[in-house]
Each structure stands twice: as C-alpha cells, then as structure tokens.
C-alpha cells in the first residue's frame, strides 16, 4: 500500500507501484487537470509539484511518490487565483489550452524559487513545456507579469 498526499489530502493506492503518477492522478483520483502529452517527460503537459518541485508526473512512478506531497493544477490555489493563473488570464495566453496546466505549474515552481527571473531563465525553465499552438510569446510575457506585476 502506497500512501501520499495529493492537494493536501491523504491518499492510498494498492495497485501497481510502477504505475506512473500521472495515471493515478487522472484515472484513479479523477484529477484530470494534469494532461498526458508524451509519456516520456518530453512535453511537460503533466507537470505537477512533488514536494514543491516541478516534475513530469508521467515519469514519476507511484513508488517514487510514496510518502510525498503532490500538488496538481487543481490544488495550486483554492480560488484559481495564483499570480501565474491571473497573469495567464490577463494576457489571454491559451489557445487550445491543453498544455496550459503544465505550463502554469512549471511557471509557479520557477517563481517559487526565483521570484524575478530573467528572460533567459524563463526560457530555460519553460523549455520542457511544449505548446503546439505556439503561445510562447505570451507565456514568456505572463511569467514576467506574474513575477513583476507588469
């Protein structure tokens, strides 16, 4: 039996310990905000926070998550008003929107450790998150806005 904390709630899982965390979150818990995009940690659509670090939940096994605290997009802010979420809305970042939960989780983790990143630091931090619609210009601007308020 694996126990872990997801968005502040204790959870337990008695299935395959080699199951990627992503599928536990989506299929077992019904937290579908984290998306499947590649299954190999290449696109970032499944990004969640594991003990505060941004990770690709498609490559984190349940056994790796045992005893840890997971925060998903659903748990980032109780009202959906994290500064990153607000900036995303202020700049109309999303097009199809599918990758955006992962983008937001990645950006929130960046700002938690680096409150005022340079453009280059934003690029490095966000480079693992693909947006096929190509919203990058606005993602870059929204991370900056979340950091600086403008």
């Amino acid at each position, binding site marked *: 039996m694996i126990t872990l904390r997801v968005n502040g709630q204790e959870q337990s899982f008695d*299935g*395959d310990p*080699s*199951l*990627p965390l*992503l*599928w*536990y979150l*989506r*299929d*077992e818990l*019904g*937290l*579908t*905000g*984290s*998306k*499947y*995009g*590649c*299954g*190999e940690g*290449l*696109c970032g*659509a499944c990004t969640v926070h594991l003990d505060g670090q941004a990770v690709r939940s498609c490559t984190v096994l349940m056994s790796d998550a045992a005893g840890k605290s997971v925060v*998903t*997009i*659903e748990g*980032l802010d109780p009202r*959906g008003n994290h500064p990153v*979420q607000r900036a*995303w*809305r202020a700049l*109309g970042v*999303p*097009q*199809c*929107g*599918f*990758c*955006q*939960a992962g983008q937001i989780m990645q950006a929130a983790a960046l700002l938690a450790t680096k409150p005022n990143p340079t453009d280059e630091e*934003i*690029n*490095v931090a*966000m*480079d*693992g*998150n*693909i*947006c*096929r*619609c*190509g*919203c*990058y*210009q*606005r*993602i*870059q601007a929204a991370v900056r806005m979340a950091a600086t308020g403008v």
Partner: protein
Amino acid sequence: MTQIIENVSRRGVLKGVVATGALILAVRALPSMAAGSGLPKYQTGAGAMPHGVVTDPHVFIAIDSAGLVTIVAARAEMGTGAARTSLPMILADELEADWSRVRIVQGEGNEEKYGNQDTDGSRSVRHWLWPMRECGAAMRMMLETAAAARWGVDVSEVEATNHEVVHRSSGRRLGYGALAADAMKLPVPAKETLRFKDPAAFRYIGTGSIPVVDLFDITTGRAMYGQDVRLPGMKYAVIARPPVLNGKLVSFDATEALKVPGVEKVIEVKGWKWPAKFQPLGGVAVIARNTGAAIKGRAALKIVWDDGEHAVYDSDKYREYLMETSRKPGKTVRNEGDIDAAMSKAARVIVGEYYIPHLAHATMEPPCATAVVTADRAEIWAPLQSPGGSREDIAKTLGLPPEKVVVNETLLGGGFGRKSKCDYAQEAALLSKALGGTPVKVIWTREDDLQHGYLHTVAYERIEAAVDQNNKVIGWRHRSVAPTIWSTFMPDPKYQQPLEQSMGLIDVPFDIPNIRCEVGEAPAHTRIGWYRSVYNIPHAFAVQSFVGELAAALGKDQKEMLLELIGPPRIVDPRKSVKELWNYGEPFDSYPIDTGRLARVVELVAEKAGWGRKLPPGHGLGIAVHRSFVSYVATVVEVAVDAKGNLSIPRVDTAIDCGFHVNPERITAQCEGGAVMGLSNAKNCAITFKNGRVQQTNYNTYPVVRISEAPKVTNVYIVPASIDVPPSGVGEPPVPPFAPALCNAIFAATGKRIRSLPIGNQLAT
C-alpha cells in the same frame, strides 16, 4: 414614417398572431435602425456545405426567466476561439445581450439541427458571421415585440439595449428574463425583415475585449477535453495497430500482457482495408483499469503482422522518385500563353527545386475518445473537428441510424486537421460494442499519434522561370509532385486533385504572360490528410522561396521582386486556363484573387517591419506573401545565424487581410501561433518511413519548436475592413508564408539557400 400609421404590429402582437409583414413595415420605418438594416451584399459558400447553415434563433438561443442567455456553440473549439467565443459573441452583440449574462453550451453532433459543423478550412467566421447575426437580430426583435405588447405600445417606440427593452418616451424597462417566455412564443421574423445593428454600435464585435469563454477553466484545470471524460465503470484501452498501412494481423499472444497488474482483457479490433476514409486501422486492444496499465500491457503483447504492399515505403527512395518525376513533363493543370516558346527565347532560365517532407499534427492532446455502445444505441464523447460528420460515419460503421448515435463534443486539445478524421472515435465505439456496452476510453499515445496519423503530404516542387534580356520574367513553369488526400477516400488517383492544386499552384497570382502548372504522379503509401493550411505549405514554400532566388539571381530586392511579379492591382482569374479552380468553397465574385490586396499586405508588412533596415552581422530579413483560405498574409522574418550556424528568430512581422474581422485579439493570437507552427514545419520536423514504418516516435524525434527557439516577438497588423468586405480565413493562412520568409531571411543572413526541409543541420559550419 408613413408606414407605421396603421400600428398593425401592436395589434397583431396583442392578439398573439403577429403578421410578420406588418411588423416589418413598422420597424423598417425607424430612422435609427436604417443604418444597420439589410443583409450582406455578398454570397459565401456556406449554403453549399453539407447541411448548410441554420438561422433559427430557437436552435441557438435560450433565455431563462432570470435573464441568463444560453447560446449554443455548435462547431468545434480547438483553440482559435471561433467556435465558443467569437461566433456566440456575434450573436450576443446582435442580440444586445450583456456578455456577462451569457453562458455557452456545446452542441452535440447534429447537422440537421445546427447546420454544418465541420470545423476546418478556416471557415467558421466567414460562414457564420451572418447566420449568427440573423439569429441575434431575430431574437432581439422578438424581445422588442414582446415588450411592446406588454406595454400596449407600438414596437417602434421600444428599443432593445444591453439586456433589456426600453420604452423610449416613458423610460419603462423590462429585462430579457421578464420578456423571454413571451418572446419565445412569437414567430421568428422573416430573414428579409431583419434589422441589424449599425456596426458602429457593436459592443463586442471588432473590439477584442472578450476573453475566450474557457479561459478560467483552462487556467484551473477544469476545462474538459476529450482525454478528460470519465464515466462510471469506464475501462481504458490502448491499441496496437499495424505498423505498415494495410498490414494485417496474423496472430497475437496476450499471455504476458494479461499478467500486467490492472490489465483485464485483450481483444482484436476490426480494421478496414485502405482506402477507408476515417475507418479504423484495426489491431489488438488492451483493456485495463487505467491507461498506464493498458500501455504497459500493450508493450507485453507478442504480435505477428503481415506488412503487405506498403512495406516498400522508404522516404529516401521516395524522395528520389519525386525528384525524377518533377524533372519530366507531368499533367498540365494550368496553361496560359506558350511556355515552351518563352523558355526557348529566354535570355536565362532560372530553376529552383524544393522538398517538403511529411509532417504530423502532433496535437498536444493525442486522439482519444470514449464510447458506450449497446445493440441499438451509441453515445460518444470525443474531441472532434466534425462532430456531425463523425456521427454519420460512426452510425454507418455500427450499422445504426444516425438518430441512435449521440456525439458529445468536448474541447479539443489542438486539432490542426487531425481531428477532422474520426477513426479514433470509431475505435472506441467498436470496443465498447465488443465489450457489451461497457464504457471504454481509447487513448492514443504520442507514439500512436506520430506513427498512425493522417500525415501532411510529402512534396517535390520544381519551378523554372524564363527571364528576358531586361531581367523580366516572361515564363513560369511549376511542377508539383505530391501524393493526394483523395487516396484516403478512393482508389489512389495518384495526382493532386483540383482542390489541392488550387492551394498555391494553379492560383499563382503573378503577372507573367506564359504560365504552365503541372502535377506529377505520386502514389500514396500512408494515410494522407489535411494539416493546417494543407497543400499551401509546399506550394507557397516553393513559389515564395523561388521569388527570393529570382531576386538574388537578377540583383533585385526581394520585396521589389515580389511586387514586380504580383504586378498591378487586378483580379486574377485562373478559371479561364484551368479545368477547375477550388476557391476554398467560396464564390469567386465574393472572394476573387485580388492582387491589389495581395500587394497591400506586402507593402504594409514591409513598412511595419522596417524593410531594408540596417541589421547586425549574421542577421537577415526575408519576406513572403500568400493568399490562402481567401485571406492575404504577408510575413517578414528576421533571423540571426551565429558562427556555428545556430538559428534564432529575433522578430516576426505579419500583416493579414482577412476582410471584416470579429475578434482581432484572437486573430493576433492565430498569427503568433502560426509563426511558431511555421517554424516547426521548417526547422526540425519530418516524418520519414523505412520499410513502410514511421521512424519517429515522440517529441524527441519529432522536435516541434520550444519556447527558447520560438520567435522572440511576432507583431501582427490586421488590415481594417468594413462589414461589407467578406470575412475570410484566419486559422490557417498565417502558416504558408512563414517558412519561405524564414528561408529567404536565412539566405539574406548567410548566403545559404535552403531548398529542402527540414532545415536541420544545413546551417552548421
């Protein structure tokens, strides 16, 4: 004002038997309404689409007693904002509804009810601007009539404004909620009698002030995509499909797969022999309690395939074949003047050859669908670009009448043409049926998506220009060799069809007296499908790169060369010299090929981009223009190439003339995203085949552009247009000019001409 003296409309309303004609007489006489009256002065191709358009306000609008206005979005929302924001916004504006009291519900797949729902071809706004206005205007007039009846006054004395109807002289007001029940009972005014708002009075149209309706849900993870559907008792499935087109399943051993924890069943899925439109490829499905178990179970399957005839497909060899074919005469599909004479008397003949590989849509949300299918009924939940057409396809496959098939449309995590093909929804339906009605969600992995898609074609393009002693181009021969999408629907015709030829080959708008366009034979060995902007990608890449080559060869400025070829403002009508011109489904008179508009976007983007400005060493500017989906887009790309050959894009400028525009903010977003997709198309992406199998597996081998490589800034300029200028496409048109503008810029920066995509390591030094 003499027309309202009888006041028949009021009496009619009071009796509850409105004589529509009389009602109109009254309202038409109102001078304040005159400015906005009248239907459009142009025709579109909307009516010619399957099931055409529907303009019944009862189909699209409901108003409850609290005043909440519900608008049905019946088309697919894949990220342009057109389906769920822009079209409902048009309706709401014309209705004089307060957007903060509007909610959007997604319509199910049902074209008899909603009209055409096939969301491709960049058609949503150009086909639905007026139907949405008609719905809104009709309901607004019904609300006004209901209010006038309530007050016992003539309808000419009342006016709907911002979610309520006001009696001008007394100042009395009734909200839409209070009037809704009465208004809904009234007959719908006839189309010819509708009064439209003066465009100057638009609250939302043209302002760009309305965020997309799903914005909050997207940023909080609540937005529901196809991948997110959950039903009680639902099982998860992944499918092992034949790795080669038309490959057959010989045998499979599921022993190990069934040992994987969470795997419950392994069953065969029926496949169809190609060509089979959107029917599934077939294969072996692993059914499990979660997706992760299904994926792991599939990896443990032992399958023997018979690859069949397409195992010969090899991209390197096929490229050689295409090249050789492009060097021989093909089928002539446009012929003007005498190209052979022009070539023989030319002072110089300049030749350019270009190769553009297969591309994959690689939508962030791979194909997926959920189904519950019993003996006499089917219900589907899926991200489908054509929910109505998919319903018909699924019904046919299941042998059910369409009314027994419910298709619930989710948000699409990207479409780009892939989700126009409902093979994945049919797989889910077949699996649920095989499992006796158990809800099944089929998930495609990224590998499935890249290896079993409906790929963008692969093309070899050869252009020859005859140039006279004065450096004037007097002859143009363009041969295009690429497999056709029609190979998906019928025995392979092996030649590009008129629809494909009309995307940048036979509609070339240049002022050259001798033009011949030819297509060469190119058999298909994989499923070919629509991909954002379709055959415009290879055709525009060749034509616009070649203009850059001509400029260099003739010592002219790129932009001046381009404008010289475009020539004076005029309507180019290739119909006199082609068998069939497909004008994106639109009447040519409403949407002609207008070189004045084409040149204008070139001039506009050049001016805004500071064409000719001084640049740092290693930088270069490139320009390209292309008309597609009846819009005109010109792009200037600035590149920087460092000493090692690393490419970056400091700036992109794009000018778009898409006629009257509804949502400039989303048009800007489409142009920004179009530049990124154009860069992905050009930079590192290609799907290649060996032994009939796709060689790419995931985003590591199909490296779409990431944030660090993306254009640093894309500036967008939208040509202003009145409501009398027909609206035209936005989603696709920004893509075609990007790659040639990029490669023209690379040439300006480095002197290297990229003739073969992807660019890959061609710039390495």
